[in-house]
């Protein structure tokens, strides 16, 4: 059962990577980079159970958090073309 899940996950990772390389639009690439991170998180969780050390689940949780930071940065970059804006400046731009 775990083996089937791992194989399916590896295939899904290959497909996601293909979309990141080929993806015609930028949003394809953002989405694939994000879901690639999610799949790594799942893979680490599965690896923990495959090698009978489920405590790897903690690492998977941390990866989920780190992955979130990257996605937020990418989305902020898309919206404002700049990462150094403070919340005041963002409010200013929203007003304009």
């Amino acid at each position, binding site marked *: 059962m775990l083996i089937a899940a791992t194989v399916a996950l590896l295939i899904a990772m290959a497909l996601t990577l293909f979309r*990141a390389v080929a993806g015609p639009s930028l949003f394809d690439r953002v989405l694939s980079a994000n879901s690639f991170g999610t799949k790594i998180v799942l*893979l*680490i969780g599965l690896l923990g159970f*495959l090698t009978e050390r489920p405590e790897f689940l903690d690492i998977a949780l941390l990866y989920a958090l*780190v992955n979130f930071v990257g996605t937020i940065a990418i989305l902020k970059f898309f919206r404002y073309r*700049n990462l150094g804006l403070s919340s005041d400046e963002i409010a200013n*731009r929203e007003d304009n």
Partner: protein
Amino acid sequence: MLDMVTVVDVVLLALLSTTAVAILIMRHLFAVVALTGAFSLLSAGLLVTLDAVDVAFTEAAVGAGISTVLMLGTLALTRRRESRPPRLSPIGLLIITITGGALIYATPDMPKFGDPNAPSHQHIIPSYIKGSQDDIGIPNIVTSILASYRSFDTLGEVAVIFTAGMGVIILLGRRREDEHGYSEDGAAYPLKDKNKPKINDETST
């Protein structure tokens, strides 16, 4: 039946090299940033299969987290496409091929992964393992090596990281502003000033 961890290793390595080649070929820098994030997550996954969990932690936090943010910040200041590289110099290619070939040639001489007879496991580690319980009295050998046997080394590392952190705070820390939005030295523009020059004015509408 194939060992599943080996299959995962092989597939992860194949994906890793595919990503590396794609990063090399691509000229669209945003896609390259997205792919480097995927690359470091992949190598973090590989490090987990090697049981190097702490290295994997660092790789994920630095590679996928901070580097993505830093590279996007750089991308905001530069163009979105990489310019054409100058033509390949044959001498450089030759040197790189020879060096890479020598490294690959040397790889089979390395001790096997986890080999207890490897030189790095024979030098001083056995005495640490034998003496740790009596010398320090901590059940975790890694902790006793880091915090006691090599404590000065660890102290130096902490000093280096502390200095680096202070440098970053001094360089990048926001200046303190009073309620009118002026910084203390009066040099910065007030935040509410509409005449403040914007680098990316055309995108803000």
